[in-house]
């Protein structure tokens, strides 16, 4: 067993920010992350190397946090999984086995994951998420194919297109689901977020220079191939985001990268037993937090994408709020000073949050693209459950994820419904005409991710 003042789960912008803030105030901090190094998806592969590239202020700030973490001698546990929580105690499994971490406070900053939309052929090799393609490129210097098509919605499309083309892939086109009109309608919320707008502009200029078309109101309705992706069908979408009949065209591709925005990773706050609420502007189900990012469990904080999709700027601000609130809870600083700083931070968070909410509203394509999921399209990849089986079970009265799990095995595989959970919730909502806010996710129980029997057998907690 190890004890600490603050345990931070997740070493992305929010987690780093919370850890550094608390360590500066004198707290003993342990940071755990499943990756080999800190930085999260945001800083994977370090800052961009090419001098022609625009490096945003937020990326620099996150990089500074990494350096400060080393300077403050924060205990970082790499390749370590937090697989269960009891109050503010955390069960860890890392390279040296299983260990119980008895923390006085915990910040959960487990990030988010990409939403996908099942379309015919999406399980073929050669189809991957934008994030998956970025990991390949940034960590291994590999691109997913020679002729690559990108489809989906949101800023990650731009960043991925930039990354892949710099690593030598031929990016045929970037297909953005939304229409420019929607951008005009919602775009005013971006006011004040100049750093982020400059970043987006720099990407657009880069694509333009390399002759990569950026096309609005289009997406991929299916891919085909023998052993792997050989061609993709591109479909035009009307202003409401619905596929236009007979607008298909086929493109020869050997890789397709897709991403339709993000959903918060809330499995840890669910395991901890926190209260959750549905907020479509935050990307779906999120833990309820107060002004200090504290969840319904005392001493347990959530920050970053876990607390609601908002991007790196909001994540770092939330991390600071949570870190400060944690040291205040620990009694390490005087409340007056903390309260004034917290008030300042909350004000700057508002612009960042507005931007996050705008992105969520603008790029919420998912529900409108359900028509792309055919009855024989696989939805649960682990257990090979097709949409038709799920739709039949929903017709027969299974209106919850757990009921569908019993009847179809969906969500029973190694990923425990992480990918298919939100997809099935949408199928239920569409078919029953109910709101997503009435459909609860799968039950979450330890271990959070697959854990060898031998490691589980070692676990000992007080």
């Amino acid at each position, binding site marked *: 067993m190890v004890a600490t003042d603050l345990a931070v789960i997740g070493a992305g912008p929010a987690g780093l920010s919370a850890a550094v803030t608390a360590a500066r105030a004198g707290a003993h901090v342990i940071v755990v992350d499943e990756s080999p190094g800190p930085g999260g998806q945001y800083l994977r592969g370090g800052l961009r190397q090419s001098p022609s590239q625009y490096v945003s202020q937020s990326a620099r700030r996150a990089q500074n946090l990494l350096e400060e973490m080393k300077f403050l001698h924060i205990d970082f546990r790499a390749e370590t999984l937090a697989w269960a929580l009891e109050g503010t105690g955390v069960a860890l499994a890392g390279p040296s086995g299983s260990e119980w971490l008895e923390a006085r406070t915990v910040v959960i900053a487990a990030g988010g994951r990409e939403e996908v939309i099942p379309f015919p052929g999406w399980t073929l090799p050669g189809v991957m998420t934008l994030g998956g393609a970025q990991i390949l490129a940034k960590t291994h210097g590999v691109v997913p194919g020679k002729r690559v098509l990108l489809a989906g919605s949101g800023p990650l499309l731009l960043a991925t297109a930039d990354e892949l083309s710099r690593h030598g892939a031929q990016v045929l086109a970037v297909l953005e689901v939304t229409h420019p009109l929607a951008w005009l309608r919602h775009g005013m919320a971006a006011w004040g977020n100049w750093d982020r707008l400059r970043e987006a502009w720099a990407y657009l200029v880069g694509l333009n220079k390399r002759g990569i078309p950026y096309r609005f109101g289009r997406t991929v309705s299916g891919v085909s191939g023998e052993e792997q992706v050989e061609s993709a069908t591109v479909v035009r979408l009307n202003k409401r985001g619905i596929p236009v009949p007979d607008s298909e065209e086929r493109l020869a591709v050997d890789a397709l990268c897709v991403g339709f925005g993000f959903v918060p990773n809330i499995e840890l706050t669910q395991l901890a037993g926190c209260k959750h609420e549905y907020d479509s502007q935050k990307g779906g189900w999120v833990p309820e937090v107060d002004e200090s990012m504290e969840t319904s469990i005392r001493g347990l904080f959530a920050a970053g994408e876990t607390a609601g999709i908002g991007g790196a700027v909001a994540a770092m601000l939330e991390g600071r709020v949570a870190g400060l609130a944690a040291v205040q809870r620990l009694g390490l600083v005087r409340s007056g000073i903390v309260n004034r700083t917290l008030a300042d931070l909350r004000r700057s968070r508002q612009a960042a949050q507005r931007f996050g909410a705008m992105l969520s509203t603008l790029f919420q394509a998912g529900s409108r693209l359900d028509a792309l999921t055919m009855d024989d399209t696989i939805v649960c990849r682990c257990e090979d459950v097709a949409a038709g089986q799920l739709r039949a079970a929903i017709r027969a009265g299974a209106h919850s994820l757990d009921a569908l799990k019993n009847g179809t095995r969906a969500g029973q595989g190694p990923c425990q419904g992480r990918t298919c959970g939100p997809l099935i919730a949408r199928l239920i909502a569409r078919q029953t005409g109910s709101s997503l806010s009435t459909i609860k996710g799968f039950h979450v129980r330890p271990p959070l991710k697959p854990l*060898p029997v031998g490691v589980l057998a070692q676990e000992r907690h007080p």
Partner: protein
Amino acid sequence: MRERADAVVIGGGIVGAACAYYLTVAGFDVHLVERDTPASGTSRACDGLILLWDKSTGAELALGLSSAQLWTELSQSLDLDFGYTRCGTILVAEDAQGLHAGQATAERLRREGVRAEVLDGQALRSLEPNVASDLAGGVLFSEDANIDPRRATLALLEAAQKQGLSLHLGCEVQAIRRQAGDDGRLSAVITQQGEIATEILVCAAGVWSSQVAGYAGITLPLQPRKGHILVTARAPGFIRHALLEGSYTATVQSGSADLGVALVAEATSEGNLLLGSSRQFVGFDRSVELDVLRSIAARALRFLPALATTPVIRSYAGLRPWSPDHLPLVGPFPEVPGFYLATGHEGAGIGLAPITGKLVASWISGAELPDVARAIRPDRFRTS
């Protein structure tokens, strides 16, 4: 909702589904009321073994034998496949003393017509190459089977629906109405969706039956007994039979409040392993306890050391309806005419569901009852 039914079954777990099935087969117009979804309580948080060797000679074994036979028939007659497999079980023994006890069990069951083959260490390892090399041996019960309890629940409900069952999901019972007058016969079940007029009610609400019975003024001697199970990633062929250790029966039959852990390893038809088992009295708390997971994992490694690297993908805990004499509570309550109970099976509810359903249907239709029906009448405790 304002309905009328011959009989109302409360509880959409495996026992309620079996009662509804056999009642519709007997020609009754049946409504089943479930507060959540089918198999959302104990029936989705258990293993799927249909065992005989863990039953005591007498009523318990008689029930087990009839029910095993019914499961075989249902696997052929129900439309929905629920993974019925004659997996066979092996009672594994750590040492000579354990094997000696196993031999006694084998002899006792052979006298009842159950096939049982005693294995020495070498014979055990040739059947199950992955067991620890120091185990003394075991007893093979080749007729034991396993099923997927959730799909079996759905299969029974689907078949019952085809015969006219009305299923009310997300519908919790709020009250039971009785006729005025001396005998106080049942007149209606009040649910959150409305009222169902009926003179017959079958309470199959598992550990939550006490609450339902309370609406009719009946007190039950049931206790929730919690059991944990670990689910591994698919490991096809890792074990070829279900493996249980001899002390499993001792753990089950004791009324001790302390945590008891004994090996149960079962392969599902998809190849995932279910690892158990634990028994503890901790009230209605269904949360997974890490200490218990550790104990189960450690116990599994004692018998199957090569499991060390197999990933556990999930865990769950369920509440088994424990009865003081380890026999279920099935049948009428004379004090409340029309009220029938079908619960108290503890960890044997999956195996004993069909015979329970069949007996309940026989009680209600007035068909001839086997002797065993009297041994499990709920009023034997005289608590009402």
